[in-house]
């Protein structure tokens, strides 16, 4: 009996964790290239969720195409925020200003969505939510299978892109040393734009898949993003492998805390882990050597 519960919660944790990974990877990618934080990332998650909801209900092509729509909406938002906020502020060379500006964007987006969609939570049921596979006493809905498959594919694609393609290598070059990369004929502005588009597409897509799990209101993204920040730090800012590992760990912590302790304790456990990590290993799970110029 207990083994079944442990296994069941492991699957739930991995489902949740892989969604957190999608959201946190976006933050990490942007941080890796720009050393900046986009606070509106949370609202891209929410917007992706709403885009998927309305596409599914108004167009009626089913759930899978609506994930693609959320991805496109996210990508467009990424392009927009880079062009309107991060590019103009880059010249000012101040780490705080973009952070504050995106807090402003976040307030704006949340309240626009509140004006349009209202405060009452939306019930996001897909055609896959009710179909359940039973296997050795464990229940897995098709919805969860889709989440795991799509996230794993996306993460694998991203990994291959970063490690093996020219653009991916150029991206890593820019995140290591923007000036030198520029001297090597890489256009850093294009790559920064590309990073924002990819990161925000992941957020939008994550939103479409988180929506059935979350309480879908205009403020849904905030609870996710707070955990995503914790994941990014536990995994090491700017570190892709660390973020994936940390995301899965946080997902598992969440499902086991819900099962064996108290759902109210989730954030306390996650952030206690975060503070512990900062105390003993501030560079994250998988540390990357970075030189500091004095």
């Amino acid at each position: 009996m207990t083994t079944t519960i442990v296994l069941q919660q492991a699957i739930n944790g991995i489902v949740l964790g892989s969604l957190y990974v999608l959201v946190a990877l976006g933050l990490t990618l942007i941080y890796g290239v720009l050393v900046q934080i986009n606070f509106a990332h949370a609202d891209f998650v929410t917007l992706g969720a709403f885009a998927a909801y309305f596409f599914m209900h108004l167009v009626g092509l089913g759930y899978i195409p609506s994930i693609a729509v959320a991805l496109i909406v996210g990508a467009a938002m990424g392009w927009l925020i880079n062009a309107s906020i991060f590019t103009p502020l880059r010249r000012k060379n101040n780490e705080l200003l973009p952070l504050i500006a995106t807090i402003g964007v976040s307030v704006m987006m949340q309240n626009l969505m509140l004006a349009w969609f209202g405060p009452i939570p939306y019930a996001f049921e897909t055609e896959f939510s009710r179909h359940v596979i039973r296997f050795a006493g464990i229940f897995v809905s098709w919805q969860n299978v889709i989440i795991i498959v799509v996230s794993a594919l996306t993460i694998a694609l991203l990994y291959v892109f970063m490690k093996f393609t020219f653009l991916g290598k150029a991206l890593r070059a820019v995140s290591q040393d923007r000036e030198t990369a520029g001297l090597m004929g890489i256009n850093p502005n294009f790559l920064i734009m590309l990073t924002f588009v990819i990161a925000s597409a992941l957020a939008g897509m994550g939103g479409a898949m988180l929506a059935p799990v979350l309480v879908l209101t205009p403020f849904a993204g905030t609870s996710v993003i707070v955990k995503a920040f914790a994941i990014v730090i536990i995994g090491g800012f700017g570190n892709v492998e660390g973020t994936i590992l940390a995301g899965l760990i946080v997902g598992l912590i969440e499902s086991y805390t819900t099962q064996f302790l108290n759902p109210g304790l989730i954030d306390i456990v996650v952030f206690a882990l975060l503070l512990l990590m900062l105390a003993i290993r501030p560079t994250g799970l998988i540390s990357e050597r970075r030189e500091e110029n004095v």
Partner: protein
Amino acid sequence: MSETVFAQQWLGKATSSRARFLGYLTAVAVIVTLPLVFNDTYWRTNLTVCAINVLLAIGLDFILGYAGQLNLGHSAFYGLGAYVSTLLIVKLAVPFWLAFVAGVAFAGLAGTFLSLFAVRLRGHYLAIASLGFAVIVHQILLNWISLTQGPLGIYGIAPPPALVVDGTVIADFRNLTAFFYLVAGFALLSFLLLSQLVRSPVGETLTAIREDEVSAASLGINAAAWKVFAFGVGSAIAGAAGCFYASFVGTLVPDAFFITEAFNILAMVIVGGMGTLIGPVFGAVLLTILPEVLRGLGDLRLVVYGAALTFVVLFIPGGMAQAANAVGERLWRRRSA
């Protein structure tokens, strides 16, 4: 001598000690007159909220603008001050002012503790650590139901006891005007304290650390100790704001101290002008009043608020202080022409 330098000296002169004294006199006069001009309950309530937010903003500005520590969790110290003082009053019947001191001390110690732990961290790591701290504090307030009553909140918190001298009531804090004078007076005192600190060798030390920590350390400055000190002072002031908030509103719910509150305080500092003490005062007043003035817009008021915040950062990154300086400079040029 170029005109700009000249103008800067003229502006610099305006902050000489005599001008500062005049400035404080004006501040006292403004504080005294405000509740007389705005004589309805609605605006007098807003005035007190402004004063509480001024306390929060100048405390955060000291941490952020002077000691260069990106604190995204100021709401935690605000909440700790509010809950510690209120719980002492409600559960242990501790007298108000004793509970006030305890709340301030607790918030200050919590800030010192977090900072002690976080001085090794820089920039965004500190930002996320402080954000994490604020999330933990909010969640504890929400989940420790036997102590805080969680989301149900604590109701019927009494205002501070009336000030009585020789049997005559001098100030009854059930009265909105008296309460405003109390908080605004405390805010003015805190401002005075911080402005003395900033202009003392302590302030110069903090500036040196903010500009270049390594160089400062090479001059024998113990950067870590000063940063911890600044964090402690700033969070103690937030604790005081929390005590006032609880006794003013009379109700405490954990959601008043959610992380979005920390972002609001940060916005006040940035819009006012980080690293100047007077800027965040105006930033706090503007960002408290603005959503009220925009109330007619209904759902869209916070959209306008967010847009305003974004535009300030994009086009006036130095905030209101920068804008005021620019206007002052232009006036000077016109005068000298």
